[in-house]
């Protein structure tokens, strides 16, 4: 009797975990399916090559938003990746003082700050003094989000480099920073690179920090100090508009964005799958 009861509980719990697993993965596939269906229907070559048209006119594309997103991501990467990388190196290699836990905790906090708050920060620090929305302001907002991701990933992967390699370099007369630059970072480079790619993929879809920093634009990007269109922002404005044609464009933009993010994720896995270049232990 008790055995029977225990078996029943076992099957019920097993069933529940299976259902929840199915819900988890099917969510991704439902999203992908929707995007592929509606986005695929609306996606054509002109989406990549043409500028948006006023509502009511059929056709047009989001070439300016693709270019704008790439521009802003590139600037955000140029700012955020070096800072995050060096902070991660510090956390992993030079944390002799009591300062490091503070840095690490701050990075975690920063990682958890809602992205809209990051947008407000950039608005206050960049948009207001410059008296204009700009690609630069958007990039700074995104870089603020990128820094903690890259620094924690860098720290994590550098820590996995065995101590024995550091000692080998030190024992040959290498200074601390030379050991880090010529042995530790190369040995952990694949993981670090993965972290950078994942960080870029993560911020590529952020919309809130761009709302009142980069704003948007109907034309080609015209410089870092000008308002600039981005894919996430265009999805937002087109999806909430009352025009069917804009809705189709929003689906297409969604598909392009998610394809780019997925590609980046797969790329990151491929880099890592080639292995951490050092055997563990």
């Amino acid at each position: 009797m008790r055995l029977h009861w225990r078996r029943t509980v076992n099957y019920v719990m097993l069933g529940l975990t299976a259902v929840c697993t199915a819900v988890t993965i099917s969510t991704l596939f439902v999203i992908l399916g929707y995007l592929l269906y509606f986005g695929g229907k609306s996606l054509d070559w002109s989406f990549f090559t043409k500028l948006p048209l006023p509502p009511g006119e059929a056709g047009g594309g989001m070439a300016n938003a693709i270019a704008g997103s790439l521009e802003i991501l590139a600037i955000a990467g140029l700012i955020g990746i070096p800072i995050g990388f060096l902070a991660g190196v510090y956390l992993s290699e030079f944390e002799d003082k009591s300062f490091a836990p503070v840095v690490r905790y701050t990075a975690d906090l920063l990682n958890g700050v809602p992205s809209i708050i990051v947008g407000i920060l950039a608005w206050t620090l960049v948009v207001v003094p410059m008296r204009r929305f700009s690609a630069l302001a958007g990039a700074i907002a995104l870089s603020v989000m990128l820094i903690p991701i890259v620094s924690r990933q860098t720290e994590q992967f550098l820590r996995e480099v065995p101590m024995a390699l550091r000692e080998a370099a030190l024992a040959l007369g290498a200074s601390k920073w030379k050991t880090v630059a010529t042995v530790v970072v190369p040995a952990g480079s694949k993981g670090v690179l993965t972290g950078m790619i994942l960080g870029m993929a993560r911020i590529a879809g952020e919309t809130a920090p761009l709302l009142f920093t980069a704003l948007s634009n109907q034309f080609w990007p015209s410089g870092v100090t000008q308002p600039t269109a981005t894919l996430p922002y265009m999805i937002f404005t087109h999806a909430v508009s009352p025009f069917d044609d804009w809705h189709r464009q929003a689906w297409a933009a969604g598909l392009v964005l998610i394809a780019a993010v997925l590609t980046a994720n797969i790329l990151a896995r491929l880099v890592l799958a080639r292995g951490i270049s050092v055997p563990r232990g």
Partner: protein
Amino acid sequence: MAPKSVRSQPALDREPPAPLVPEPVSTVKTKLKASHLNFYYGSFQALHDISLEMHTNHITALIGPSGCGKSTFLRTLNRINETIRHSRVEGTVLLDDVDVRTVDITNLRRRVGMVFQRPNPFPKSISENVAYGLKINGLVSRGELRDRVEQSLRRAALWDEVKDKLNESAYALSGGQQQRLCIARALAVDPEVLLLDEPCSALDPIATAKIEELLFGLKDQCTMVIVTHNMQQAARVADYTGFFLMGKLIEFDNTDTIFKNPSKKETEDYITGRFG
């Protein structure tokens, strides 16, 4: 008692490079001299008042049970223990009569090389591994580098096995080959002293025999200090042997004296295997 290997016989009975009785002071030069060395990990004292002289162009073995401080002592000689946080050292280590703490750390570690317990080649090619010390110290020109790599690999008796795959990853080598690569890497910068921290503990007997043979051949080129768990190994390769126990140096003498006629009871107990 482990079966006595064939190699240990000739090693013990060989024509000794150093006479069995201590040589007159004039002919034996002291390369490294530790005086009243204490070492602490935080509040734990790992070394208690160690005084020990290591002679030029001789091999000194340090034996003792796990955790007795022999590795800690070795790692104090090239100051690599300093990388451990909350560690503290008292007393002095003299290299050619100069306190190692006054020597520039890069210079010290170039002169006092080290080989670790587990082979730890860099994730680089074989030749890059050997060239590493030369490159970071800016010791030779690019043209000379190849020759120095070959020369170092020859000194480590590895050249014939790797000469056709110098650009392949060091991880493609076997454990014994990797350890000889690490020795070649240490030899490339021409160290005056070579510290070996249980260099054969991860290796099979054949690889071990090769390394011992190699150490023997290196004696005229540098002074060696080897930490080992393996008493036969100490008996085979070392001219002098020190026995460590609980962070103290119990006894230090000619290897033959230590193994055949130790003066301390603890040493005898350990040597004969009566030790816990």
